[in-house]
């Protein structure tokens, strides 16, 4: 049985539906990300789990018990807020101790657990600092310690890393994953950053306009996007208009000068999408001209003007000669690397 279960959750504000028909089963110890652009309903869903908002429809169950019937103060969930929401008038240790105090944990045990929680997030020795005297990264760690010290059944993270600079964010991602693995807490992360979602999660829930677009492992959502939205949102992708020609035998899928055996069961105009790193330069294939060539250290980024419109190509910097700007090239890819959408069934 699933540990945390969301079944047909919907939230309406007046006439506006913010979340609709959201169903998800989370296993114990799993790390799930809600990924989507702002306004897609991911934070609203998180707030319904936390109990700050009541769902208009649907059920939320934790270990089979109805969670919506429990007051938010009694749900025992740990939450890290985007703004951290630390108590500025309390020291780091007092902040972390607050949840234990509310649970009437004995003073001596409290002190021990606070010390351990701060040590776990790498803040040993910062017990008596006030939040406003700490850096953003340190405040973030205090917020994490405060959420974890109460041994929450589920840890909810609301864009916790979005206020940190890029380097610190990467460090925190690794650390967050390590901490989550060590204590094996079921975790739900809300984020709009696809890299963050991919590097942290066991499974990603891609959301758009209040609905789930796809649920899958990071690899699945990246390699086998269920919709155009998912492929656009998770990393860069090239969409080419193509046609499936069934007049000749065997049938062919044709995009400009590139062609391949047609997939079974489709005909007519289709869209093929290929990740930039799966496209190579060859002797035959889609005709294109390099518009710009950008060196990015470990790889080259090419913007091309192809027969089927603009195309992005990424090539490893493996020491091979790379085409220069203005050069005419042929773009090739393996048929199994592309996704095909649309088309009539044949």
């Amino acid at each position, binding site marked *: 049985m699933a540990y945390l279960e969301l079944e047909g959750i919907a939230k309406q504000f007046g006439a506006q539906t913010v979340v609709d028909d959201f169903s998800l089963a989370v296993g114990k110890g799993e790390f799930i990300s809600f990924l989507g652009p702002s306004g897609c309903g991911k934070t609203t869903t998180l707030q319904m789990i936390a109990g700050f908002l009541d769902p208009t429809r649907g059920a939320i169950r934790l270990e089979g018990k109805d969670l919506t019937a429990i007051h938010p103060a*009694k749900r025992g969930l740990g939450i890290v807020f985007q703004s951290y929401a630390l108590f500025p008038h309390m020291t780091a240790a007092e902040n972390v101790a607050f949840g234990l105090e509310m649970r009437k944990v004995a003073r001596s045990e409290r002190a021990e657990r606070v010390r351990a929680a701060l040590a776990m997030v790498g803040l040993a020795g910062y017990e008596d600092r006030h939040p406003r005297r700490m850096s953003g990264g340190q405040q973030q760690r205090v917020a994490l310690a405060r959420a974890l010290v109460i041994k929450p059944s589920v840890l909810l993270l609301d864009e916790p890393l979005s206020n940190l600079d890029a380097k610190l964010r990467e460090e925190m991602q690794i650390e967050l994953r390590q901490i989550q693995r060590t204590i094996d807490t079921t975790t739900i992360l809300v984020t709009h950053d696809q890299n963050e979602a991919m590097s942290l999660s066991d499974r990603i829930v891609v959301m758009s306009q209040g609905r789930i677009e796809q649920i899958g492992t990071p690899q699945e959502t990246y390699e086998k996007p269920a919709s155009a939205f998912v492929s656009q949102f998770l990393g860069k992708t090239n969409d080419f208009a193509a046609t499936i020609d069934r007049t000749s035998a065997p049938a062919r899928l044709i995009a400009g000068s590139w062609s391949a055996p047609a997939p079974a069961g489709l005909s007519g105009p289709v869209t093929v999408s290929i990740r930039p790193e799966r496209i190579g330069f060859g002797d035959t294939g889609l005709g294109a001209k390099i518009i710009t060539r950008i060196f990015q250290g470990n790889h080259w980024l090419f913007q091309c003007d192809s027969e089927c419109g603009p195309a992005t190509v990424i090539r490893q910097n493996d020491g091979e000669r790379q085409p220069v700007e203005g050069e005419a090239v042929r773009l090739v890819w393996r048929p199994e690397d592309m996704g095909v959408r649309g088309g009539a069934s044949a």
Partner: protein
Amino acid sequence: MSVAAEERNARAPWALSAPALMLFVGVLLIPLAMTVMLSFHDWGQYKGIEPVFILKNWHEIVTDPYYAEMFWRTFRIAILTTLLTAVLGAPEAYILNRMSGRWKSVFLLVILGPLLISVVARTLGWALLFGGNNGLVNKLLMSAGLIRAPIPFMFTETGMVVALAHVMMPFMVLSVWAALQRLDPQIENAALSLGAGPVTIIRRIIMPQIMPGVLSGAIIVFSLSASAFATPAIIGGRRLKVAATLAYDEFLNTLNWPLGAAVATLLLAALVLIVVGSNALIERRYAEVFR
């Protein structure tokens, strides 16, 4: 940069702020200095003001218990008014802050409305409501069964505190409201998720963070109440004088300007001491919240 240019640059701030400084010196510092000097002059029924340096007025204020009572009453009224505005104003601001959009602006206008009306008009309104034993307030309280006999409001300190508290309320509400605006909007949810109930959230999380706002509001209300003139003059009348009405009477009725100047100077000095002192205390105490 040349030495001359550097000199010019150093003078620029002074030149630019000169008009404001001159106004400040002209209409505030000079009259203030003249008032202080006036308090050391002599005065007689028939000789008028004599520009000599004597300590007669100060000696009279310090030794005559009449003045001690007056100043004690002034500060007692100011403290009670401050307490009343804090007790009513802080929850008022909290409720206001939790209201949604349209209602918030309506009630903000209701709270600020009194500031648009002259203090004299507002206090006269209170005088009408108090109006002796048959005043509206007393009738209401008696019919509600809260009191048996009418409370004397007119010409009493109770009436003054009530009317002053109404006049001063906007300053307290605005000050607390400003502090509430600085709260993290998720801070209550954070406390809630950690298991705190509504009372605990207000007592342990909200109160400590808005305390600086309450205290700065208290400083404003206290200093304005202690130096208030119109309200004590109308509600207190001739019988119940405070420092401001006493200074006024000395100036305009007795025509003993030097004594009035001494009362005014003492009031000013006491207020400055109290305000500066409490401000320093608050800033030290709440250093972490202010940062």
